[in-house]
């Protein structure tokens, strides 16, 4: 299963490289995989980017996106309901670009931390992501910033607009993460 997905992704990337090849041969599209896809689908940005940032589809598996999209009238205490056709379009976009199809390092770590059939509704409930953030969510942690929840990733990951969670440009102020600077 995995191998097949990677195979397809590899082909797509190879095709991308061929296309790019005409213009700039030296840019390796494959190796830039520390970053996650920055969403561009206009319906997704419009309907899913008003209350919080429009998360990269590559941060959750397809099964999670289907679950989130299947209960939009009961969405973390709010209603994010959209027309049925818009809902289908956004679901298709998220599923087609989900973490299980992605080859970047973050998506692989996300998939690797989930057991089969585990479909968290939150990115922050994915074991890999939850583990990374346990320290900043600990009540006794005294670094900054201290948002109420982790949902606005960009508060700390200031390069998130370019899909970069690994960047050394990081607004968290704490001894433990000094190496990041």
């Amino acid at each position, binding site marked *: 299963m995995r191998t097949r997905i990677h195979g397809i992704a590899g082909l797509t990337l190879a095709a991308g490289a061929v296309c790019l090849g005409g213009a700039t041969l030296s840019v390796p599209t494959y190796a830039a995989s520390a970053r996650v896809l920055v969403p561009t689908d206009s319906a997704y940005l419009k309907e899913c980017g*008003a*209350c*919080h*940032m429009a998360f990269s589809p590559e941060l959750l598996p397809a099964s999670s996106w289907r679950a989130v999209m299947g209960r939009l009238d009961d969405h*973390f*205490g*709010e*209603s*994010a309901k959209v027309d049925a056709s818009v809902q289908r379009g956004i679901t298709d976009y998220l599923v087609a670009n989900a973490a299980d199809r992605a080859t970047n390092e973050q998506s692989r770590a996300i998939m690797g931390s989930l057991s089969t059939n585990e479909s968290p509704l939150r990115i922050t409930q994915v074991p890999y992501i939850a583990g990374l953030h346990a320290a900043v969510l600990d009540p006794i942690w005294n670094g900054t910033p201290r*948002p*109420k*929840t982790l*949902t*606005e990733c960009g*508060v700390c990951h200031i390069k998130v607009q370019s899909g970069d969670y690994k960047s050394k440009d990081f607004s968290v102020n704490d001894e433990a993460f000094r190496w990041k600077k």
Partner: protein
Amino acid sequence: MATGRGIVVAVAFALLGVGGRACAGPVDDLLQQFQAQGASHFTVAAGEALWERSVTDPKTGEVRRCALCHTTDLRKVGKHATTGKAIEPMAPSVNPKRLADKEKIEKWLERNCKWTLGRVCTPQEKGDALTMIGSR
């Protein structure tokens, strides 16, 4: 009766015209629609009162009001109460994109009334809110 309603709509037009906005259209349509649903005349004062009305959510115990996310001064950038995401100013005088799309206005009034007040807003409340926002 019919003339009274005409005057009310005219007043609403005038109020909405204050900011010198280009797109009065969608709001006028909605105000007429709300009146057809039984609302009487709309005032900025009633809209302000609705904006600052506090309602305690029975499930979470949180005290909620419109200003929580959109701020009391509608010309300022707001902040989503749960996620902390910045919300562009609501006042059309500083953010011309506001009150320009009928579907968008209806969608958010429905969502925000339910979340804030625990129920949908009446046509009267919706008209008052739009009249107040349009005056900013």
